[in-house]
């Protein structure tokens, strides 16, 4: 509908332009801070601190990034940028994969098996939806201390992997699988494990991708729990390190390094979204059956 005539079509074209303008505005509002972070990471700290904010890339990009990777950051926190990125990746992956494993297993049990208290289990899981980690943080912390999991990867990952949301999503998806498919598999001789591996898992892949993206970002951006459960800098995530780099006095903060670290903190989630976008959207929109 790209005609340029009078009447309703013209009106539609102008309202379309207005809509676009509005969306572009929205994108600018959302994207500008990110744009500024990227720009700032290419300027020296002095330039960043001196108003007005430069809006074009500066000349310090190479030296800033080189400095960040070759010890500038370890000088402050005692751990290298690589270590921080590694920690965060490990935790985000652990949380995403762990959540998928646990929520798929529980959804599988709830949907495909008949056992006593099945619906009770479902409701118990459902109710925990309403409890964010902050609510159960004190007892969880105690458990982690008792288990000696402070300052360990399991301590960082385990409390975060039970997910009512993902369980619910998988349950909804599993319930759309035609019952006959399960019966056909039973007649073909597939037991519960084979049915899961050969049929349910391949059919769930797009959903898995969508949930992976969401949970990877959730894990990547965790702040409160890693802050609590880690004492040594060695176990810091990039988000925690970022916080620690910022001191109260503006002048004491190496803003150029902070900006570089911010860019590096933003990048992996963006990459995950970009690379898994096709699957992600498919998983949210369609169910392939």
């Amino acid at each position: 509908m790209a005609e340029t005539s009078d009447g309703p079509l013209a009106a539609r074209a102008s309202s379309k332009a207005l809509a676009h303008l509005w969306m572009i505005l929205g994108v600018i509002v959302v994207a500008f801070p990110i744009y500024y972070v990227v720009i700032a990471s290419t300027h020296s700290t002095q330039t960043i601190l001196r108003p007005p904010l430069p809006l074009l890339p500066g000349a310090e990009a190479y030296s800033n990034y080189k400095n960040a990777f070759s010890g500038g950051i370890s000088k402050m926190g005692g751990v290298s940028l690589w270590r921080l990125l590694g920690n965060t990746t490990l935790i985000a992956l652990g949380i995403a994969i762990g959540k998928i494993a646990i929520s798929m297993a529980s959804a599988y049990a709830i949907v495909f098996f008949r056992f006593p208290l099945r619906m009770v289990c479902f409701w118990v899981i459902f109710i925990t939806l309403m409890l964010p980690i902050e609510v159960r943080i004190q007892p969880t912390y105690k458990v982690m201390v008792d288990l000696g999991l402070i300052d360990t990867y399991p301590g960082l990952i385990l409390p975060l992997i039970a997910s009512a949301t993902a369980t619910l999503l998988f349950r909804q998806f599993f319930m759309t699988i035609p019952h006959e498919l399960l019966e056909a598999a039973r007649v073909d001789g597939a037991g519960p494990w084979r049915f899961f591996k050969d049929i349910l898992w391949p059919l769930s892949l797009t959903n898995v991708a969508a949930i992976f993206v969401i949970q990877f970002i959730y894990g990547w951006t965790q702040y409160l729990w890693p802050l609590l459960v880690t004492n040594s800098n060695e176990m810091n995530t990039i988000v925690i390190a970022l916080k620690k780099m910022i001191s109260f006095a503006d002048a004491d903060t190496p803003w150029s390094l902070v900006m570089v670290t911010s860019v590096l903190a933003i990048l992996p989630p963006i990459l995950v979204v970009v690379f898994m976008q096709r699957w992600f959207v498919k998983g949210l929109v369609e169910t392939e059956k």
Partner: protein
Amino acid sequence: MAHILLKELRKSYAGQEVIHGVSMDIADGEFVVIVGPSGCGKSTLLRMVAGLEGITAGTIEIGGRVVNDLEPRDRDIAMVFQNYALYPHMSVRENMAYGLKISKMPKPEIEQRVARAATMLELEPYLDRKPRALSGGQRQRVAMGRALVREPSALLLDEPLSNLDAKLRVQMRLQIKDMHLRTGQTTLYVTHDQVEAMTLADRLIVMNKGIAEQIATPSEVYRTPASEFVAGFIGSPAMNIFTIRAEAGTAILPGGHRLAIAGIPASGEVRLGLRPEDLEVTDADTASIPIDLRSVEHLGADAFGYGVIVGSDILLTLRLPGTSTAQRGDRLNVAPFPGRLHLFSIETGKRI
């Protein structure tokens, strides 16, 4: 290939009995069709044989072995589902091979069997396609193929043709019949379509509300229906059935017409069944039923007349020759062929 024995099978859902004791002895290689109206328990019965539904009471034997507590995979059966239930992410080849792969059959043999089934079902060009890229008829054939490659003791089919259009249904019906003749597989086939039932079956189970009303060959079911339900369900157009009164050995029809009927009780009321093709137009005399024609449908070779018995509101369907000139408003006298009448008890509905 095996002989299947159903003994007093019962099924209840939450205390509600839906199958009320069905017994049948199915010979090796026999093609048995379970037919009945929707909701009468056909699928439930079939699924009990398959092992997909538990058995509340009774026993099922397949090949001389009681299978009541066996999983479907241990019963040596294969099943074709109404909506085919193909695995959407697997190619046609993988769909057919899946059961064999699970049973750890050597690869070359799997390939051989799949190839043979694909040839028989004309599926070779589609072996690498996903079900999504197939037409309804092709999907149906894949479902058949998936069941056939297993070479099971018993083949179970639940309304396998009901999702196809009329033309394809006829074609697949012939193919199923042909395949049965070739493989000689013991087959249990569920349908609500009496044409499928009559043409495919060696024997029929006519079900009604969870009861097997009659178990017999198609021609027996047609000629000597065991109950009023069977009489009304099998045959198209349906049998004319109405109540008559017996008086000293003669029948008083609605409208007061008298008719001599052999085998009628001395007195009381019974139900009389007359197939449309068992009524003959005669000259007016005492041994006939006068009817006023309401309409005539010409189908070419045949015509069907619809009329009411004079003096009543009982509608009769009768078959007329295609050349008949009878028309709406005519009064005809029709007489039943002797020996082609059906009498049913009013109380039990059973054949007298």
